[in-house]
């Protein structure tokens, strides 16, 4: 069906509005990070900078612990991402293909993990981690992040596995391939977009996690960006330039990750949605 000119105009106008709504705050943050303080605090914001400075980034990198927070965030997010994939893939395959008592019940039950607000389990978890010496360690954050991301990742991954034609698996079985080989050699390459989607989901979940990181981490040297950055801003006085420079720098790793595997993420979402 061919669109009329009027329909196209409405469509593109709608898309433009959406792009502006989503893009303008990012634009304001990024351009604000290079404005002079006087321009940042003007009541009427300037969309195109009238001034230019890199002093907020200098302060961010030289006078604050932001680089330490950045490294911690990257380490925690990467480990959380890898462990989530390593656990979600076989778990999803088991739920998808293997027959065992209570399979459907357990498959639904794992989502109960999302029924409890984080704050409810925060204090008991702190006590537990303190007992085994994990408080103030990045490992504690990886464990929490994996636990939070895993249930939904298993659901996502199972949907992707379901999109693979059964005949391919059957051919591998006829050739005598055991289950791990089928998963690793046959299915994994076919659901690469799904793995990319889970990877991005796990990475971003970890990258933005605040609640547990704020309580489980005690020392500055192990803080991640959301918590360390919240402290840097200050309660009674806000250094707006530092805030915007930090926000800009904090989005870079996510942007890079999307640039690398974002193409798969979109197709992965579509696969899951159709299934």
């Amino acid at each position: 069906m061919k669109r009329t000119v009027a329909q196209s105009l409405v469509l593109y106008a709608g898309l433009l509005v959406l792009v502006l709504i989503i893009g303008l705050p990012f634009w304001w943050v990024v351009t604000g990070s290079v404005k002079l303080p006087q321009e940042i605090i003007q009541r009427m914001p300037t969309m195109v900078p009238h001034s230019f400075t890199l002093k907020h980034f200098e302060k961010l990198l030289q006078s604050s612990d932001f680089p330490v927070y950045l490294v911690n965030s990257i380490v925690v997010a990467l480990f959380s991402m890898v462990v989530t994939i390593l656990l979600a893939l076989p778990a999803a395959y088991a739920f998808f293909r293997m027959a065992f008592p209570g399979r459907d019940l357990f498959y639904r039950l794992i989502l109960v993990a999302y029924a409890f607000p984080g704050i409810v389990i925060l204090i008991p978890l702190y006590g537990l981690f303190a007992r085994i010496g994990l408080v103030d360690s990045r490992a504690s954050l990886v464990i929490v992040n994996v636990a939070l991301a895993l249930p939904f990742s298993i659901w996502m991954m199972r949907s992707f596995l379901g999109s693979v034609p059964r005949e391919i698996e059957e051919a591998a079985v006829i050739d005598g391939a055991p289950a791990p080989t089928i998963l690793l050699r046959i299915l994994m390459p076919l659901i690469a977009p799904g793995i990319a989607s889970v990877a991005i989901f796990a990475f971003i979940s970890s990258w933005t996690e605040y609640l547990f990181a704020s309580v489980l981490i005690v020392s500055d040297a192990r803080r991640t960006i959301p918590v360390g950055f919240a402290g840097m801003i200050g309660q009674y006085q806000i250094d707006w330039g530092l805030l915007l420079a930090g926000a800009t720098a904090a989005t870079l790793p996510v942007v890079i990750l999307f640039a690398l595997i974002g193409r798969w993420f979109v197709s992965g979402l579509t696969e899951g949605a159709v299934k």
Partner: protein
Amino acid sequence: MTAFRFAAAAGLALTLLAGSAYAEPVTLTWWQMEQPPQRVKRIQELLDQFNKEHPDIQVKQEPQSWGDVYAKAPAAFAAGNGPDLLNSIPDFTTVIKKIGAVVPVDDLVKDLDAKHHFIKATLAPYQYDGHTWAVPAYNMALSMWYRKSMLKEAGLAVPKTWSEWKTAAQKLSGNGKYGIGLPANKQLYTDQTVYSFMVNDGAADIYNDDGSFRFDNPKTVAAYQTYADLQKLSPPDSPSWTWGEAEACFNSKGCGMVLQFTVISSYNAQAEGDAADLGVAAVPHADDEPQSATISYSNGIMITTKDKAKEKAAKVFLSWLLEPEHYGRFLNMEPGLFLPVTEDGAKADSFWNDPVTTKYKTQVETMIENSKAGKLFGFTTGKVFPSIGAISAQNVIAETLQHIVVDGQSAADAVKAGQARMTGIAGK
């Protein structure tokens, strides 16, 4: 035999010497809630100096955030890995006292008071139930900030009463400017600004002596009504403000007057930085009140270790910190924000030597003067009731204002509902 005795004595002496030479220093962990990098850096400089001068005591800081510490500290104490020193504000002290983690500091405060003379308003919120629960460390008091040139241009004197204040705010409004910037967010900043109206109308006490509430009274209603009237002259986004937005509005000349602990460092860095034009005054009072008061937050440091050696070391450290030659540097971790809690500190060269503090000397002197009339809700009568922690945490004072400003309730109805909320919280 003599040789044997000599050898034994020598052996004992050597053992003692070796023991003292290699004795582990007492290590103290200090959770302090000043996380901005320049504050962490200044505190570290002081700790490095202290640790060098006291090889038998090592203090390390672990900066925390006020937003997290209410959940984090009780969890840490319950798990047995809480800090030895913990920064506090009065309502947080009640939380830590309730779980039995804080040690009274009566003798230490008595000694420090004799030596440095605490400003009474800073000590009072920590003295109840027969003990002193924290050593006051620095003070913050809300003041009214304005530009002298703007008032002069409008033909206004510095407002001292609510009537004068309303007139000034109205005259300063127009041409895209707002006469005043007052928040109405359900947040601590609004608690503070609203309470600064209440204390200026004789409605400082929210509890009766028996622990029941006296929040719902005509003076409180009048304070809320005046606040709501002035709030109409604030920018339309002000109901969602915290401290930073109000400060930015003032620094950009969008707001004629604001209530803040300070605007000095941001005015110096982000606005004109003209010390001669920056005005600060006491928060105006009700027309029938004789003088101004304000809300003040005396920040203290609690000793939270039951280990006697650590407790002793903590007292050595706190005494060292309040010595005038160190104390001024401690306060100037954020010049123009943190005010001295001792008379000695207010005169200390180390305080007045800072370039920003020196530049804004008259403003800082006024802030110190204002802080002497400081009060804090729930800590005004010498009796402290545990429910104040929850009332403060749930921002009931700010919530009451929202019912007027956002929901359109009358001040009388909102205050009545506010008292019901407080009673409900206390009953839990």
